[in-house]
């Protein structure tokens, strides 16, 4: 147990260093990009703005050309206070306020989709390997690989067109019906589910194949291993062998992959959110990039970074629980 704690502590140390590097890069990268956020902002006036007013606005936005080290200092000290600055695109709303709701919806939609895809894909993969050559094993892997090969946005637009626009089975945009106020009532929850259904379905469809194939292939290797044969020789029930002896071991690579997938949830849902106009962080990211909204971009990247790192830390903990070798 002590060894496990030491291992987890070492991993934690690594994540802290990664976080520091991310914070520094997060400061540098937007500033190395070409283009000036102020001019983008003023461009929206299409000429209806006087130079004096532009100077005044520049000052208000803090867009004056301070030396880089001074900018870095103010960035770090603000960050330490949890202040991510004011958004340029939504000026003068604080970035943290702009991010708030988006994080929740993306977490719900993409987090849910990844979880469903992981559980469903891994289970189907385990079953396919168990009955190797059976109907499940012959039909599903090629079918899902085929679906996964579609460009995602194309599949999403097709789904939106057929089931949303033509058949009118599902709503085409937003996270819940516009005429409902958020609450813990059944109509609202129902509305959230029906709005998330199509986006989540498309995300699950394209990613399911990957989980299934990975699980199936590892599983086949594990099923041939000595300890499984030993379990069979002892006369354990097939169900017990499948779950406790084979799947538990075969799941390890998938769990590592799950950590990565979970981390990328916040950024990876960008296309889904654009196609279905889902009010999450992906759409915000798009707005921020288009408007060169540095503070919002930095806030988003920071959120994504911390999500990836904490997801990986969680996976480490789960790995320790699943894999006794890490505990010795």
């Amino acid at each position: 147990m002590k060894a496990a704690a030491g291992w987890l502590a070492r991993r934690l140390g690594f994540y802290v260093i990664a976080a520091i590097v991310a914070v520094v890069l997060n400061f540098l990268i937007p500033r190395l990009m070409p283009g000036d956020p102020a001019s983008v902002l003023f461009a929206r006036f299409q000429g209806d703005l006087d130079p004096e007013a532009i100077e005044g606005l520049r000052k208000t936005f803090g867009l004056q050309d301070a030396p880089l080290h001074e900018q870095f200092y103010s960035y770090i000290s603000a960050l330490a206070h949890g202040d991510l600055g004011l958004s340029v695109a939504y000026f003068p709303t604080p970035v943290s306020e702009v991010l708030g709701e988006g994080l929740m919806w993306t977490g719900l939609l993409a987090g849910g989709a990844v979880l469903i895809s992981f559980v469903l894909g891994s289970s189907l993969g385990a079953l396919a390997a168990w009955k190797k050559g059976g109907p499940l094993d012959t039909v599903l892997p090629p079918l899902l690989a085929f679906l996964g090969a579609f460009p995602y946005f194309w599949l999403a637009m097709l789904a939106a067109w057929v089931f949303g626009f033509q058949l009118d089975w599902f709503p085409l945009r937003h996270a819940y019906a516009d005429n409902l106020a958020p609450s813990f009532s059944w109509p609202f929850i129902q509305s959230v589910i029906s709005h998330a259904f199509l986006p989540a379905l498309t995300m699950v469809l394209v990613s399911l194949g990957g989980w299934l194939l990975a699980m199936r292939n590892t599983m086949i290797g594990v099923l041939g291993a000595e300890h499984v044969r030993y379990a069979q020789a002892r006369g354990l029930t097939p169900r017990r062998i499948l779950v406790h002896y084979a799947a538990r071991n075969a799941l390890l690579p998938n769990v590592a992959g799950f950590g990565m997938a979970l981390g990328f949830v916040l950024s990876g849902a960008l296309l889904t959110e654009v196609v279905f106009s889902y009010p999450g962080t992906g759409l915000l990211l798009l707005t921020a990039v288009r408007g060169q909204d540095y503070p919002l971009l930095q806030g988003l990247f920071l959120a994504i970074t911390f999500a990836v790192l904490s997801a990986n830390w969680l996976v480490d903990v789960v790995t320790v629980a699943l894999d006794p070798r890490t505990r010795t």
Partner: protein
Amino acid sequence: MVVVAQEQQATWIRNFNPLVPTSARWPTSAGVYEPLYIFNEATGEWVPWLATDSSWSEDATELRFEIRQGVRWSDGQPFTAEDVAFTFNMMKEVPGADLGGVWGFLESVVAGETQVTFTFQRPYVSGLQAISQQAILPEHIWSSIESPLLEQNPDPVGTGPFTEVSTFRGQVFQLDKNPYYWQELEVEALRFPALSSNDQASIALIRGELDWAGIFVPAVERTYLARDENYQAWFPTQGGTIFLYANTQVEPLDNPKVREALSLAIDRQRLVEVAMYNYTTPSRPTALSDGYSDWEDSSLKGWTDFDAQRAGELLDQAGLKKGKDGMRTLPDGSELTLSITSPAGWSDWVRAVQVIAGDLRNIGLDVQVKGYDFSAWYERVGRGDFELSLGWSEQGPSPVPMYKALMDPSAVVKVGEPSFRNWHRYGSEKAAPLFAAFDATPDPLEQARIVNALQQIFVDEVPAIPLFPAPAWGEANHTHITGFPSAQDPYAPLSPNAVPACLLVMTRLEAK
């Protein structure tokens, strides 16, 4: 209730601060708040709004507004001349709020009993536009706000028709009518679903979920109008003009004859057909759109008609001879390649530059199309780092703001420094005194004479190449709401993008 789509936002952020129009919700400066006068682009008239009358002093250094009586703020307080003076004097203290740059020419703003007097540093007739379209704020609220630019103003108090925020969520917000509004209102509320893109807005429009919108719809007859007889679209071309800007600091575009040749080489009829779905027409030689036809000198002709042969002759005279491969070279024999740019995502403009590049290749010019992301494109044209580019023009109640931006020497900035107008870097010494003279005279006859002279200079010196008037996108759905303007009843522009003229529409709409 009227469902409106004007802004394209993924999520609504609650901001109703008219001093920061880039982040305030669309109805803020014309809807929640109101200006003194509204310039109606559709009729070319000034409509008295919070003011009832205005008068100039003889020498055009003093402008006096008579303030409308009986108007109340949405909290019940009376609206007075003091509120007007307060708004402008605050903009003096907070320069970032002075978007029209009024304190560049204002001396003082003083409130009387029912009047407000604006005194100018010099005779300045053009100041009327910047002053009269400013949204007026209530002194009893804003005098206690320390940093007006940082205020999000979530619960605004205004004089406008729709001031009460009854719903505000990321996906939708609703403004109910002002209980104290000074006119009769026939609709109860405006509602705004968050639509993140043109595609999303088009789908909502086609499905009848919107009552009023201002978006570009391709092939509108087939995609929208054919679906329901209650659907209406009106894309008038009375505002600004889309130009082909040629950087006059780049050889051979510094030669006006070469610029004239470029203009003659462009088949504008095909251009508006291919790029603009025939929503607009080829530009007039003076670059003035229909909205300015009263100002126009219609005797000026010729140089915007398609004439490839004449274009070739002009280029020959300018020394740009054709080489062996049929492509033209510079007079010293060196290779000549020009690039033409546009923002990459603007599909109508991208098609337009492709058509233009083809036309120019036909007269032997090697022209390459380059698309940039909007911000990168804007940065380049602003710094003068381009050869040919599409661009918009400035608008105003007279053609003068447009011509000023095109050829006023004082608007010219060195290449490399950012500029928000006059990207092509052209100043006309002949036009400069005319701009000063225009601002010093309130006499309409004298103004007309000056604008005529400016048109002649524009045609002679070719500061930029006019392509076509820019359509103002406007769509309406008459199923639940009536009273929208149309080509048959053009009392105002239909487009909600026309701020503050959209107030004229808001106050005329009726629920069926």
